[in-house]
């Protein structure tokens, strides 16, 4: 069974690697994905049947330990139980349908290979999440799912709108990762070595002895709930889901209709013992679900696009799942999940049929055809009060629904704008003033240390503030990619330094972390210099530069170094991030907050650099090297063609 677990986990990765090394040949990629989806299906079916034969046991499997020091263990833990079985079965069904569907649907599409690569990495991430045995592993899968989501939304990178929406979804993901990252750290802190999902339930078995204080459990639960509601587009993050429908229809179907959107529910199911322990957190989950149902079902009423409507219908159902979760109806949630996943996936796949469907099939068959049915706006109200709703309320309700509960505006003003504004202020401040402030702070602390004999670790406070400032400064500017890059690196280095001050024993961990960051920084800077060498200095870098098309190799390199720089689970920096958190903050818990914030903001800022530089549609302007060739030809042509124009006009 363990072998099958590993197979289910690794086959998508194998598929990813095979597609990656395969030539850009549709037929080969199709064959690879066909076999991989079937092998995955076989593994999953075998796993589930074996599990059923054995009498549905919950099974944990520790593959190997990735990293171990005396007080820190990072084992690769897998866990399989009823919830994993349902999710894995659903993944198999939908993934194999989508692969078959896309074989023909994406035929002759320029990004055929890119699409299958991202789909495989998505399923890989998804399986990690589903089979993970601890929050750390789950977080790794979570990140992979988030990144492949970003890439698929921005699949059509010629147009600014998919790129923007991809970034929006990525920011929400990233923000909600604060929840998960801090959550994983807290679970280390609270449960020590026993943060295995398999042991969670046991921990809470003794009602009289909760494994941690109510306060910290409440905090941990809230963090997990934030993570879950971001991924599942629940209150207050509903707005990103409809806007994420930018990739090819089947990718929207598998991500936002079927699987990705239910990951939040999965997270809650997994951590059920933690948050269901307390009524307050149950109530929070209930309220999130309830508010989501209200807002999403109202927003659905005024969606004039079919995918937007399906998105809100799906969000509503996930809201119901949250409510069901808060009542502890786990089985019902699982059934509901399956129903919603299949229904929305199907609806999205056939969404192009809506024109013909409404005009020809339904319009004739249903007597309540709603074209020309003048006022059914309040048909959901009882007939007796329907006509008594004053106009101002009608308008209010309409505006509320049109603006989707104002959630985007809310999140923007509460989170995005303040960060951006702070970044602007930091960037406007002159270098000398910054240096002066730094000097003063250092002197003050030195004085304090000398005079009163305070601990060296207090140095960590100004350093971590400096780290957040550096991140914010990266976030606050768009048009200077190199300084953004430097600021991100600076912030990471400051993080390392702060950790050293807090816990001088953490040297190897910091080294591990920086060993991921430094090469990424250097490569990134080199690539940026190369990319920007030909850039016209007068031209603003605010516009999109489409370098993924004009300079594909350098862009790929930039993308990779961006991933490493922001601690994606392909670089040692990912592990380092986790280590820094757990090390430093086991001594000083406050440190977890600034470091997480800095990591999150760094991710967003880095993504923005990549987005501005590499995406967009190329025009004559962008192509500097070729421009030389055309210039040579042009003179002889200009005369000739001018003559033609004169003649003809």
């Amino acid at each position, binding site marked *: 069974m363990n072998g099958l677990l590993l197979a289910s986990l690794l086959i998508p990765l194998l598929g990813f690697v095979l597609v990656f090394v395969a030539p850009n040949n549709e037929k080969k990629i199709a064959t690879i994905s066909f076999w991989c989806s079937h092998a995955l299906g076989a593994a999953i079916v075998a796993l589930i049947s074996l599990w059923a034969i054995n009498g549905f046991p919950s099974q944990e499997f520790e593959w190997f330990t990735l990293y171990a020091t005396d007080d820190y263990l990072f084992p690769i833990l897998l866990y399989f139980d009823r919830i994993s079985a349902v999710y894995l079965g659903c993944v198999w069904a939908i993934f194999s349908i989508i692969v078959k569907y896309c074989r023909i649907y994406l035929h002759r599409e320029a990004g055929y290979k890119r699409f299958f690569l991202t789909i495989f990495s998505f399923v890989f991430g998804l399986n990690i999440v589903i089979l993970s045995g601890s929050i750390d592993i789950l977080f790794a899968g979570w990140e992979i799912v988030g990144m492949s989501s970003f890439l698929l939304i921005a699949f059509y990178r010629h147009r600014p*709108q998919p790129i923007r929406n991809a970034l929006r979804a990525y920011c929400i993901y990233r923000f909600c990762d604060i929840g998960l990252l801090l959550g994983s750290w807290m679970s280390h802190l609270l449960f020590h070595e026993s943060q295995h999902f398999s042991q969670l339930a046991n921990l809470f078995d003794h009602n009289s002895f909760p494994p941690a204080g109510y306060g910290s459990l409440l905090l941990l639960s809230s963090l997990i709930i934030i993570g879950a509601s971001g991924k599942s587009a629940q209150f207050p993050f509903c707005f990103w889901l409809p806007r994420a*429908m930018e990739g090819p229809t089947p990718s929207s179907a598998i991500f936002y209709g079927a699987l990705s959107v239910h990951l939040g529910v999965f997270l809650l199911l997994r951590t059920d013992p933690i948050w269901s322990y307390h009524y307050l957190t149950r109530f929070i989950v209930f309220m999130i679900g309830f508010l989501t149902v209200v807002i999403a079902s109202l927003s659905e009423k005024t*969606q004039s696009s079919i995918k937007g409507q399906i998105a809100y219908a799906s969000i509503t159902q996930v809201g119901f799942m949250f409510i069901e979760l808060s009542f502890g109806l786990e089985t019902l949630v699982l059934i509901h999940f399956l*129903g919603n996943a299949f229904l929305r996936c199907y609806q999205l796949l056939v969404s192009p*049929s809506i024109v013909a469907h409404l005009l020809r099939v339904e319009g004739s068959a249903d007597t309540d055809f709603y074209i020309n049915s003048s006022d059914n706006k309040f048909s959901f109200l009882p007939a007796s009060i329907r006509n008594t709703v004053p106009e101002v309320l009608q308008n209010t309700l309409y505006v509320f629904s049109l603006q989707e509960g104002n959630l985007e505006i809310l999140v923007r003003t509460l989170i995005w704008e303040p960060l951006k504004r702070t970044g602007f202020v930091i960037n406007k401040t002159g270098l000398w003033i910054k240096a002066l402030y730094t000097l003063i702070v250092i002197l003050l602390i030195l004085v304090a240390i000398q005079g009163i004999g305070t601990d060296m670790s207090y140095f960590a406070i100004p350093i971590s503030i400096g780290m957040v400032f550096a991140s914010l400064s990266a976030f606050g500017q*768009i*048009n200077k990619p190199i300084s953004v890059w430097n600021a991100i690196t600076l912030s990471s280095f400051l993080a390392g330094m702060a950790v050293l001050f807090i816990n001088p024993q953490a040297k190897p961990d910091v080294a591990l972390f920086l060993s991921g960051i430094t090469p990424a920084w250097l490569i990134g800077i080199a690539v940026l210099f190369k990319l920007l060498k030909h850039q016209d200095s007068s031209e603003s870098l605010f516009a999109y530069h489409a370098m993924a098309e004009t300079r594909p190799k350098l862009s790929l390199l930039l993308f990779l170094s961006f991933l490493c720089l922001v601690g994606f689970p392909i670089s040692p920096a990912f592990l380092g991030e986790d280590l820094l958190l757990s090390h430093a903050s086991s001594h000083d818990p406050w440190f977890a907050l600034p470091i997480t914030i800095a990591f999150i903001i760094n991710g967003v800022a880095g993504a923005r650099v990549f987005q501005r530089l590499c995406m967009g549609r190329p025009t004559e302007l962008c192509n500097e090297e070729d*421009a030389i060739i055309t210039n040579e030809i042009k003179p002889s042509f200009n005369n000739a063609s001018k003559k033609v124009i004169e003649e003809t006009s």
Partner: protein
Amino acid sequence: MLNHAQTPTPLDGHSAALAFDMDRVIDHISHWLPTQGPIKDFIHHNTLHAVQHLPFHEGVALAGKMFGARSYLPMENYQRMYRQGRITDHAVDWALNRTELPVQQQAQIRQTMLEPDHSSHYPPVSLANHGIRNVWLNRIELELNALVHPILFRLLGNFLDQGISRWTLPKEGECFWDCVMRLAQNSLLPLYPLQEPIVRELLTKNKEDVILICLEKIVGDPCLYEQYLLEMILAHPGWAGMVRIVEENPRSLLDPRNISLKELIAVELVCELAFLIKQKGAAFVNVNNTPLPKDTTLLKEGLPKPVIPLSLKVWHEAMEWSLHSELLAALKPKQKSPAKGPTKPYVQAFFCIDDRECSLRRYLEELDPGIETFGAAGFFGIDFLYQGLDDAYPVAQCPVIIKPKHLIRESGSQANPDGDAKADSITHLHFQSHSVLRGWLYTQTLGIGYAARMAWDVFRPGSKIPKLKMLSEVDSHTHLHLLRENDTPTEDGYLLGFSFSEMADRVGGLLTNIGLTKHFAPLVVIVAHGSSSVNNPHFAAYDCGACSGKPGAPNARAFAWMANHDEVRRILYDRGIEIPVETRFIAAMHNTSRDEINYFDNHLLDQHPAKGLSTFQKIMSKALQFNARERCRWFELGPKSSLVDLAHDHVTTRASSIFEPRPELNHSNNLYCIIARRKLTRDLFMDRRAFLHSYDPDKDPSGNIMVRILSAVIPVCGGINLEYLFSRIDNSVYGAGTKLPHNVIGLLGVANGVEGDLRTGLPSQMIEVHEPARLLIVAEQSCAILDKALANIGDLKEWLDNDWVRLVSCHPASGEQFLYTADGWQAVELPASFNTPTASQSEDIILGQTETIPVHQLIRSTS
């Protein structure tokens, strides 16, 4: 058609400064917008109608500078065709010669044409992407479009929505501006971003004042107003174009709306101002105060001066001439093969002019020389609005240039056979509205059932779930109310049905057009066409272009009914068209995607048996299989064997697969239009590239029939041709991009994602194999008579004079060919070495071929 007087010309600086004439400016700029109506009727038209008054190459270059689009294919495509021999040296010479440049410059161009080129496939710097507005926005570092568009598109989408959203936004007869004002001013929640104090004050004024005030604040200089507005609406041509169309023709929507481009501009400007003030403060830098790069186009100094890339232009013309001369060479009079002896046909079949019918006709004739085919515009001369049994509303069944006055309704001749099928819940897509709790219940219970349905649809696409009725499968057990019973018009002003003399006018008109006024066979089959596809919002673009994007079945049925009626025949007899008593007209519809045929009104056959119908049906089903195989050569994933059954199965599956973005390739590679007797083209293999219209030159000494034909052929076939051409040349600007991320908005059109602009033009899946060459119309008529005809086609002459389509006269007797130019007819001289390849049957030509095939001469062994 486009009015010459109103074509866009820039304002000159002086008058602009004095008075900014808003209505005139809006009128001017609206000419640059696409004119594609709601997606339910897809009407092909010249994508670049805005520059149609200019010669082709200049117009295309100007449009490129305005919209930021490419003008030609990438250089390497032409070079590859040259290496493959599809572009001949003769054609390159011909094209170079037409540039009228000195010989030595021609030689220079010829040299550069063969050099590798890496930059020409990038679109040019343009007004839409690099104009003053974009320079300014980049300078102040504000993504105004990203802020304003989602809000504007949501308002527009909900205002114009035809049935997707549950709540309707506008009240009865309310206009867009009033509607937005109602939401902004009379709601407890602010309508974002109009809650800004300065903007709130503005909203009390009327929309003209609002536009002026906003422009003054944002732009500053009245000379730049027009350009700013133009660039602003060119950032979302899809919605702006849709608004303009609804403004000019509210009836293009089922549920009419009151909206104008001016209101759109007012709302957009107000939103822009609100965001500018919010993000940049009240004293933001306006457009006039932004330093412009020196090469920025200023509209006040005239339209951009495009540079026509000469080598590409020459390549393009050479490609077109190579392809055109393939046909012209094949049409040259040849040594007659030993007299065939005109076999008297036992069946005559009328087909639509459509290029997709070209091969089917060839196969029919190949299989049975006793079948004679004719081509005519697929509405078969009968123009009416049609409301089928299943239709919620009547639709026009004729080319868009004709405004029908008659309404025809269909009624069931027996009890509705599919009443119970629709009650079956799994056949519904569950898109319809239901309450929140019911939604919860449905998802819980029905949801899992969809896993089975989805798996079925994806893994077994060809087989249908029983009882599930597919679109476009027309029931043939119905009855058309064709005969007018009284003359009172309906409330919409239409006449219900036709009188006998009106019927005779239409039937006789068509018969005269195609030159069939005697020698009727005992059986005449009228074959309309339609196309069935699933999961395809562009379905209307797959149906009959001459029926405004509808299946032509009602027209064929109407025609057959009329032509069978004794009273109509009596009137026709008086007019010199004698239809023998034993001749029967039978209506049928060819499904071009599934390659199936449906015969209508079979219940009448007992009463009036049609002689030879069963033989014809057998031949037809065989021909359809051959036709399916010929189509399969284009499908990379289709069967490559010569087995016809496999091919036919493949096309059937293809048309019913939800994951197939290419149910068929429609008019891809359309290239020729031949108005002639069938005799001229009967032995030609034209690779499904020709629109074929039957015409008898001997019966048209005055050219009047030619006028009628040309006025339908030029806009319909020319429109199809140019829409394919431009969608192919720059799919992201002129076309709709790839179908895969499309999202249906309000039943109006498709957009990318939820908040994108409406996409006009054709999706890349329809045009990717198209060779973008202009249409060559060959008319079998002498130049003199054609001149007479051309004098009477009105505005359409612009298409010919400016080379948007080419016309060649082929003399009916001598076969001499002359090319039409604005300066007169030029004799077509092809080198003697031009030999049309020959083959004995179509099968030999198509097997193993995956690209376009030159015109072949078919040498029939027997008969």
